[in-house]
């Protein structure tokens, strides 16, 4: 069992931090997460004890950086059940997802081919494919959602054919928080020769991931949504696909050599994708974050968040002033509105009560055509949130009306 009180001790932001004269309750974990001491220390350790750049170091400091760099890659691989050559450092999920569309999209797509995605996707998952599909005269089609917002698997099966070359989907959607049946989707895709690109920005931080079992072709996520630094992320790719994929960035360190005739000999994957100085302290911090999460246990994290979520949802459902959009989801994402109050105004009411939630279209702008609302509020949980925080959140929900939401401005 997860000892939340102990865990909270690890987070400086959870040590009495106030917001608008209330103790901070941070429920915007879908946007980014707070950092434990171990991660902060790892970053500071790089600054204070290593300082050097990685790769080709001809002195001890640089060598130590190289070692940590490589060890992190191996530990990330273990975290995902992958091989270390399949792990590419990126600047984040957005970069990783773009790298795939750029690097393999044009090789896979011919005129008339199809990329499948859904209307619930984050812009970073769908827009890169929108562009490359247009460029290749292929098309992007959306797998319909069920009424509750989940991917409709029957529709997906019907949409599959030999022209479908790519399926790009979130493992957990950032607006509604459903877990997509990725293993099933991958099996289906592979039957038709399509590849599956998994946006794991919201799943890798919250549940165990086994890329071998899932059998996905690519999978991308960001460190900052899993207690790590911003500016660093991971792209997993199957070896054979990484070998075919063209790097989006060219530059120092990714090439073995090049000559005046324009011949560029790239290194093997993953190095060919890592041009230029990498986010070194970010990688140190990511390493610490992964160790920290593993020490707690990804299964335990997932289970705890589900419990907290179930607790919150049971009570929210009873509130007349709350519209809940995803009561049956599988994760810690609660998407709702206060009746009659524009989402952003309601979010401000939470702010005035010390609670950090996010309003907006959450960058899944297409989804609003399904939800029939231009904006929602999202409260997204993480393992350091407590039942007491949820109680406080529920009390504020219960109290939210047009009047109370406006009163915070006076």
């Amino acid at each position, binding site marked *: 069992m997860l000892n939340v009180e102990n865990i909270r001790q690890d987070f400086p932001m959870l040590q009495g931090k106030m917001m608008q004269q209330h103790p901070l309750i941070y429920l915007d974990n879908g946007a980014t997460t707070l950092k434990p001491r171990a991660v902060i220390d790892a970053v500071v350790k790089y600054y204070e004890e290593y300082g050097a750049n990685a790769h080709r170091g001809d002195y001890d400091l640089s060598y130590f950086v190289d070692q940590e760099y490589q060890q992190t890659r191996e530990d990330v691989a273990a975290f995902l059940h992958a091989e270390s050559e399949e792990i590419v450092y990126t600047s984040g999920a957005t970069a990783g997802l773009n790298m795939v569309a750029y690097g393999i999209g044009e090789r896979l797509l011919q005129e008339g081919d199809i990329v499948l995605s859904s209307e619930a996707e984050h812009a970073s998952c769908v827009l890169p494919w929108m562009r490359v599909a247009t460029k290749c005269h292929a098309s992007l089609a959306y797998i319909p959602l069920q009424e509750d917002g989940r991917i409709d698997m029957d529709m997906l099966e019907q949409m599959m054919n030999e022209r479908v070359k790519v399926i790009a989907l979130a493992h957990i959607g950032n607006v509604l928080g459903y877990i997509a049946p990725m293993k099933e989707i991958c099996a289906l895709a592979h039957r038709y020769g399509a590849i599956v690109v998994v946006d794991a920005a919201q799943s890798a931080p919250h549940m165990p991931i086994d890329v071998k079992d899932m059998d996905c072709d690519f999978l991308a996520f960001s460190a900052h949504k899993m207690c790590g630094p911003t500016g660093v992320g991971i792209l997993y790719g199957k070896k054979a696909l990484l070998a075919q994929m063209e790097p989006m960035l060219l530059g120092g360190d990714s090439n073995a050599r090049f000559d005046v005739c324009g011949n560029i000999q790239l290194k093997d994957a993953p190095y060919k994708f890592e041009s230029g100085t990498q986010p070194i302290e970010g990688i140190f911090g990511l390493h610490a974050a992964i160790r920290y999460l593993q020490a707690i246990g990804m299964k335990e994290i997932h289970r705890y968040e589900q419990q907290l979520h179930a607790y919150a949802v049971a009570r929210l459902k009873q509130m007349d002033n709350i519209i809940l959009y995803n009561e049956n989801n599988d994760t810690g994402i609660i998407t709702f509105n206060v009746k009659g109050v524009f989402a952003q105004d309601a979010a401000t009411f939470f702010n005035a009560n010390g609670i950090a939630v996010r309003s907006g279209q959450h960058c899944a702008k297409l989804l609003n055509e399904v939800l029939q609302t231009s904006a929602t509020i999202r409260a997204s949980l993480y393992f350091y949130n407590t039942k007491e925080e949820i109680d406080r959140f529920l009390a504020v929900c219960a109290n939210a009306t047009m009047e109370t939401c*406006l009163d915070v401005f006076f």
Partner: protein
Amino acid sequence: MNNFMNDPMMLRSIIMDHYEYPRNHELKKEDGYLQKHMASESCIDDIYVQSKITDGIIEDIRFDGVACTISTSSTSIMSELLQGKTIDEAKKIIANYYQMIDGKDFDENVLQEAIAFHNVGKQANRIKCATIGWKAMEELIEESEAKK
């Protein structure tokens, strides 16, 4: 400071009134209107503001779009307040409004109902909502001046 500035009930009802019944809330297709789309910086607010300015007089202000309570009501109030004013008068009112939002001295009398937003800075992240329509209008005035 005038009394009603410290009466939350009063201020709230001004805002709600303008949110529920926004004034000048329909765009015009006629000639003579300059138009500004304000959307790029924010994920939610997405409004259009139009103005017809003739011979230095603001003849009409119109707006429409998806927006929160604060941006809808502040734009609605602005559209009433600046209508019929000369460019110079309007500029003075706009300047006063920004002064108020920034927590500086301002002239209450020229702002009228717009003083409902005098404390919006308590929710600093909403300042952009309380000024989005005003910014649009400021740019339309500049544009009309540039045209001459």
